[in-house]
Structure formats: structure tokens, C-alpha cells
């Protein structure tokens, strides 16, 4: 590798500093830079523009483009999980609106029975999305709400069930147990449920997001995807590369605002471009 021009090493250092500043993390950044060097040697890439194209290709590859788990089961059951304040309730509302807009019958389950006014907050979103809404009293068992929602979904012939859960830190074992029970409840009511388990990650989160993804994934037997929120700010969400490298979990959606329309399907090349702007 001693055949490198000085410009290439300078460019690599510049790329390294950009990646580190977008929360890609030390280890994954080094991996990406090493991978880039290998690709550049393979293809005998010399000029900076071509090197950047190689980089974009490598990074888009890490993120993959795996489609959502296919299933023609009805209703499709989607569980929304994540740490406190990441944007779960808002994302649940946006997703409900998206499906309703596609002509689907949506039912939302208010499984956050703990936080102050959580049910009220989700109810507003259900009305906005024109979705059915299943709730119990504040303080009741979240799994009971989910049981009730699964029954209602069958009775009302719903296409989609979206389960909003309470925010919880992945370091709280008892709260992770509660989440497992919610998941089991859907599975007991319907073989194959939940069809999607979506981890909602705040786009401003640093390296802790990797730990969150790991623990939630382990607890729930896998995550089908990530919704990365608050990308309308200045954070870049580079941590999803570390998650891609270590856990292979794809990003499905990004949140770009607080409005009902502010949900986008994930577009890896566009995301990589935004990282470098």
C-alpha cells in the first residue's frame, strides 16, 4: 500500500474525520477506511472523485436494501420499541397515516400504560390517521391491551396493527421482560406475529445506539428494522453503519419532522450523500 499518493492519505484522513463527526464511531470508521483502501487497490482507483464513489458504494452496501419481511398474513402486526423519547409514538402515528393512506384498515394499540398522558398523545395521532384505537386505563397491564387489540383486529378485519410501547432503557431487565411478554402475547393470538419489530432510534444518539440495538434485538429475538428519527436536525445518524456492520439490522424509515407526513422510506444512497453534505 506504499504506492499511495500523498493526496489519497490526506483524503482518507479527511473522510475519517467526517465519519467520526457523524457518529459512525471509531471501530466502524476504521473498518470503512480499511475497506475503502482495499477496494481502491483492487480497482486501481487514484483520483479523489472515484475514491468518493467507491466510498459511497461501500457504505450503501453496509446499509443494504433488504425489503421488509414479506407476509400476506392479515393483520400485519408491527411492534414499535425503543428508549425514552426516541420518537416511537410519533412514528407510530405517521406509520398509521401512511397505511391508512394506502387504503388499509389500521388499528393502533396503546401499550404505553405507564407514562403520563401517553395514551392521550397516541389517541390524537390515531384520530389524525383515522385509525381504530384500542386503549385501557392508565396503569393497566400493557399485554392486556395488546391481547385486546389482537382480538379487535380479527373482529374488525384490520389490515395492520401498530403497537406503541412505553419508552424504556435497555439496561432495565424488568422492563425488557415486559416487552418480551408483549411480543409473546401477539404470537399467542396469531402465529407469526409480530411480523415487524421496529426499533425507533433518535438520530442524535451516539455510540449508545449500538448497545440499544444489541440488547433490544437479543431480548426480542431479532429486530426487523430501524426507524431513525429527528434527521431534520443537524445530526447525521451515522451509528446505523455500526449497527449494520455488527448486527445487520436494516433501516426502514427515517423521521424528518413532527408532522404526519414527515416519515420517509429509507433510501441508502440518499442517506450516504446527506452524510457528506
Amino acid at each position: 500500500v506504499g504506492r499511495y499518493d500523498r493526496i489519497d492519505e490526506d483524503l482518507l484522513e479527511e473522510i475519517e474525520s467526517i465519519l467520526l463527526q457523524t457518529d459512525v464511531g471509531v471501530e466502524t470508521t476504521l473498518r470503512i477506511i480499511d475497506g475503502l483502501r482495499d477496494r481502491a487497490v483492487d480497482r486501481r482507483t487514484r483520483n479523489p472523485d472515484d475514491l468518493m464513489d467507491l466510498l459511497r458504494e461501500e457504505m450503501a452496501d453496509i446499509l443494504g436494501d433488504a425489503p421488509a419481511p414479506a407476509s400476506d398474513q392479515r393483520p400485519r402486526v408491527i411492534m414499535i420499541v425503543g428508549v425514552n423519547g426516541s420518537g416511537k409514538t410519533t412514528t407510530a402515528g405517521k406509520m398509521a397515516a401512511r397505511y391508512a393512506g394506502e387504503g388499509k384498515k389500521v388499528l393502533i394499540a396503546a401499550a404505553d400504560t405507564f407514562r403520563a398522558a401517553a395514551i392521550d398523545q397516541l389517541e390524537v395521532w390515531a384520530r389524525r390517521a383515522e385509525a381504530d384505537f384500542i386503549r385501557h386505563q392508565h396503569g393497566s397491564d400493557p399485554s392486556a391491551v395488546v391481547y385486546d387489540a389482537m382480538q379487535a383486529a380479527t373482529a374488525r378485519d384490520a389490515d395492520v396493527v401498530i403497537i406503541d410501547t412505553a419508552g424504556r432503557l435497555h439496561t432495565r431487565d424488568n422492563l425488557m421482560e415486559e416487552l418480551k411478554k408483549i411480543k409473546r402475547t401477539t404470537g399467542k393470538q396469531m402465529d407469526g406475529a409480530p411480523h415487524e419489530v421496529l426499533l425507533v432510534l433518535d438520530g442524535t444518539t451516539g455510540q449508545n445506539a449500538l448497545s440499544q440495538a444489541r440488547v433490544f434485538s437479543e431480548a426480542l429475538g431479532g429486530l426487523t428494522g430501524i426507524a431513525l428519527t429527528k434527521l431534520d436536525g443537524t445530526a447525521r445518524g451515522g451509528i446505523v453503519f455500526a449497527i449494520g456492520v455488527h448486527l445487520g439490522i436494516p433501516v426502514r424509515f427515517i423521521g424528518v419532522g413532527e408532522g404526519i407526513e414527515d416519515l420517509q422510506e429509507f433510501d441508502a444512497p440518499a442517506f450516504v450523500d446527506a452524510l457528506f453534505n
Partner: protein
Amino acid sequence: ELTGRMEGIVRNLRGQGKLTEKNIDESLRQVRRALLEADVNFKVARTFIDTVKVKALGQGVLRNLSPGQQMVGIVHQELISLMGEEAVEVAIAESPPTIVMLAGLQGSGKTTATGKLAHHFLGAGHRPILAAADVYRPAAVKQLQVLGEQLEVPVVALGDSRSPLAICKVAVDRAGREDRDVVILDTAGRLHVDEEMMEELRGIRGAVHPHEILLVVDGMTGQDAVNVAEAFDQDLDIDGCILTKMDGDARGGAALSIRQITRKPIKFVGVGEKLDALEVFHPERMASRILG
């Protein structure tokens, strides 16, 4: 009490007679890596390393410490002094009420912190009143009202008012009439790059003159912490910061970034969802947590 990378530094310098530029540089590479892994901002880490290098070079030979121990000692000391003072209190106004305003990004923990601060002030014998000035987020007002009920503290909300400024003014006015000596203003989460929303905060500040403006920051924030802290501080001249959700396992490097860029104290740390889960800030504990 040394773990991870710091312990590695002591090990790697074993057998070296004294600190030289070469072995200092090698140690600092490891320190930099530790800081970045702990979410310290890239540029903040670089400034920190430069400062430490100067101190290490100027240190000379210490008879009773190995070069590795010296190095770790300098890093620790510099980090602790950067973290600032322990347990800086909210300034109580000479003539009541003391007005405290909370601000920050979406979901950082402001509404919960409003409740926690109220609990904290009640414990110190004060009589708080809360202003539910988030008119945007669905059920935000209700959320604060529920907390107020739990604490038996009044919450000011103007039923159909869409003006956060009006709500804050009414809260200050009611404090005077109802003999409440602390007013805590809960504002809506907003982006520092949302000019209109930042102007709203400036407007509240200009009309109500809070004695204390606290930036509420999520403890798991990564590189972006520097952008957020700088923008809010430039717009509002904040008095300090509350770092939330530190009951998790985030290393909390955002704390160093915020301190470096604003020089304002971290006054409180959120350590749970309950209203009593608020601690005063301990710089030494934070330094150890970041260095890992």
C-alpha cells in the same frame, strides 16, 4: 479503579523511564480513542488532547509515579477540571418569584425535568408553579398537568391559547398573586436550526426575564451535542444544563462537549423516570464515566 483504555496506557508505558514526546503521543492516541468512543465531540477531543499534551510535556520527572500513572493522572485531572464545579445550585432570585425556563431538543426530557425540579424545590421548602407552554405536541399540556397533580403543584395552561408567551406571562403573574415563589416554564422541544422556534424562546426570555435558563440534553447524545449546546447558548445565554437519562449505560461524552463549548455548569443529572430521579452533578463521577 482504572479500567479499559486508561489501564492500557499504564501497561504500555511500563518500563519507560520518563515521559517523552513519543510516548506521550502514543498514550494520547489511546485517550483520544477512548473519548470518541464515549461520544465526546471530535473537535472537542482534539482540543482536550492538545491541552493535555502541553501539560504532560511540561511535567518533568515525578519520582514516585511511573510515566503511565503520570499520564493517566494528567488526563483525569484535566477532565475533572473541565467538568466544572460540583452541585451548582439554581440561583434563587432576591425578590420572588424565581423564574426557571427549560429548553432543548425534542424528547430530551424537559417536561419530566420540570416535574423533577418542582419536586426538588418542594423539598427545599419552596412553592413552585408550573407553566405548560408546549402548545404543539399532542397532550403535552396534559402530561405536565398529570405531573402537577402528582406533586400537588399548580399548572398554568390556557385552554385554547396558542401562545407560549402568554402562558408564561400568566404563570409569572399567578405566582405573584398565589404566593408561589418559583415558576418553572416547560417549553416545546425544538431544533436549534428552526429559526422561528428559537425566536419564540428569545421572545419568552425577553418578556419574562427568567433568572435561570437550563438546557435539557439527552445524555446519550453523540457528536451533535456541540451544535445544540452552542446554538442554544448563543441564542439564550443559558445558565446551565440538565443531562438526562444517565441511568442508562451511555458514557456521557456529551457532557464534556457541552462544558468545553459553553463553559456553563452542568447543574443536574436525570437518573430515572420518576420525579425524585434528579441528582446534582458530580464532576469526578462524570470524568470517570467518560474515560471508562
